[in-house]
């Protein structure tokens, strides 16, 4: 007999309790602390902060714990929380030239002022499962460097810039538009595009960046420089009228240097693709830089042939909170729409095979 679709409230409550139990897992295993997540799953925390657009390790750790390690879900939690935060003002642009370097490498110069600083990286490890991590035990302490890194670490792009070999970053006093407050409209300028890419899903950007390397809108990139370290964040409170430091944040910056043969208006010179992310998010920063450059195709008079060059395509689909929600909304009931289609298909079938129906 017909069971009315009643009792939704109770079912939802029960589902939530079940989920909480599932999240906790075996109660004999000690519960994760936020400090553990933050300290020992640091790269996950940093990815969630980047895509969630909030720099707060503790909140990100909480989101990861609450989402059972599902990073896209954690990003979503952080974003929804972000909506409720008041805005006090905005900071001055951070100066990555003054970064306290922990890692700095260039693929374009063998040596350069300040040298190559490897820092903490997986790059040269053999990807062998390290079974010693399965047991308790502390790693050997890393020996301190024989000498501290140079205080002066000029950015590679600045070095090239002095010779005019690379385009200057355009300077503008215009207030950039804010993607989180205003709707996106097309065409979008580069400041908007960079905001979108900074929040974009790492996997999506990675695949797009990869597609440019495989010939779908090639940009002839060189990894001019990748640097990671701490920069100070400054704010000018209205009542003071001068800048004060409010925090240090870890950033990864990638500056791609791309070939450009010149055009009628411009002499041959290198062009830039830019990537920036919170924490140690090198893959994200590099992918972002490649896609940024690729989205400049129109501005630089290049042929528009590939998805990564198409700003409407890239920007409309880059956000994993939007994408995840809309893909999964198909789980919601669609009885009414389906009923309408069902009725149509039955009616069409009753009339016999499609073609005769038209006559």
């Amino acid at each position, binding site marked *: *007999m*017909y069971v*009315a*679709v*009643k*009792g*939704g*409230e109770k*079912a*939802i409550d029960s589902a939530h309790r079940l989920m909480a139990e599932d999240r906790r897992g075996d109660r004999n295993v000690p519960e994760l602390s936020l400090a553990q997540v933050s300290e020992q799953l640091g790269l996950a925390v940093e990815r969630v902060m980047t895509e969630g657009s909030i720099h707060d390790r503790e909140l990100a750790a909480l989101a990861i714990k609450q989402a059972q390690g599902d990073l896209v879900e954690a990003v*979503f939690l952080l*974003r*929804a929380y*972000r*909506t*409720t935060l*008041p805005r006090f003002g905005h900071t001055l642009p951070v100066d990555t030239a003054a970064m306290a370097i922990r890692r700095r490498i260039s693929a374009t110069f063998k040596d350069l002022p300040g040298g190559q600083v490897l820092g903490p990286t997986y790059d040269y490890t053999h990807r062998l499962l390290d079974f010693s991590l399965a047991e308790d035990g502390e790693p050997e302490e890393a020996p301190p460097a024989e000498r501290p890194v140079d205080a002066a670490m000029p950015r590679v792009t600045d070095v090239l810039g002095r010779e005019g070999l690379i385009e200057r970053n355009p300077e503008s006093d215009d207030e950039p538009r804010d993607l*989180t*407050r*205003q*709707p*996106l*409209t*097309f*065409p979008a300028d580069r400041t908007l595009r960079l905001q979108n890419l900074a929040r974009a899903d790492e996997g999506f950007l990675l695949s797009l960046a990869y597609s440019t390397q495989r010939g779908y809108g090639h940009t002839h990139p060189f990894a001019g420089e990748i640097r990671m370290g701490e920069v100070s964040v400054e704010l000018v409170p209205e009542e003071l009228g001068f800048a004060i430091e409010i925090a240090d944040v870890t950033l990864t910056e990638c500056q791609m240097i791309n070939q450009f043969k010149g055009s009628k208006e411009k002499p041959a010179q290198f062009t830039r693709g830019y990537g920036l992310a919170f924490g140690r998010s090198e893959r994200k920063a590099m992918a972002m830089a490649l896609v940024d450059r690729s989205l400049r195709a129109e501005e630089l008079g290049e042929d528009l042939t590939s998805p990564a060059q198409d700003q*409407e395509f890239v920007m*409309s689909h880059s956000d994993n*909170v*939007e994408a*995840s*929600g*809309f*893909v*999964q*909304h198909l789980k*919601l*009931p*669609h*009885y*009414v*729409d389906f*009923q*309408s*289609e*069902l*009725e*149509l298909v039955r009616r*069409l079938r009753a*009339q016999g095979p*499609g073609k005769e*129906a*038209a*006559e």
Partner: protein
Amino acid sequence: MNTSQGYNFAYLDEQTKRMIRRAILKAVAIPGYQVPFGSREMPLPYGWGTGGIQVTAGIIGPDDILKVIDQGADDTTNAVSIRRFFARTAGIRTTSRTEEATIIQTRHRIPETPLSAGQTIVYQVPTPEPLRWLEPRETETRKMHALADYGIMHVKLYEDIARFGRISTTYDYPVLVDDRYLMRPSPIPKFDNPKMHRNPALQLFGAGREKRIYAVPPWTSVRSLDFEDHPFEVQKWSQACALCGSTESFLDEVVTDDKGGRMFVCSDTDYCQRRRDAKEAAE
């Protein structure tokens, strides 16, 4: 006014609500026109009614009485979840009775009980752009709206008739609002389209992921596209509702066993229940 866990009344801060109200005012001033707005991330996923929730949050006050339906039902999971969200963050009264509600947020249906002046119905919209499947580019579709360049929409209907002998769009059926803007009514069945025409209630549409708000002010003309010799028509059922006996409502099909057993019942649960109550009272 703080209600639950330190969140502002109806979750959004007052600045954001003002921004949403401005978008709504503009939408009401230009019926059917999609107004871009600074959609915020909400604690519900995109595609699950974030646009409708933001519109409701923008207009709701402490004295409002809210009804939320999904597929016509007050008790489906998503309707419950959204109703609770406002009960929690705004502490307002909720109801399942259509005529009692001041604001009705809906996904995919318009209630069978006629709306009256002073009520507002808020539609959750997944994809606001009626030209989207014909033209993927926002820059181009905005131009087509500006120029009322809508011929291509009829090309689609023409194709339907050529292929199937009839217009085969059954839900989210495109309409022309106030004889000017082409509009998607959200995925309501075309059965509900006639209810939009010259409706005394204010009809608001929110698309969160696509960041658009649009509106049909009270008593505005809403015409479903058609051809003179293939006029717009709505679905009809050969059965009556198995529970309340209505022959005028939109019916959902319920599978009762695995041997082809089916029954048809009202999709609007409030309407159905009230008819059954009335019948019982009469007996």
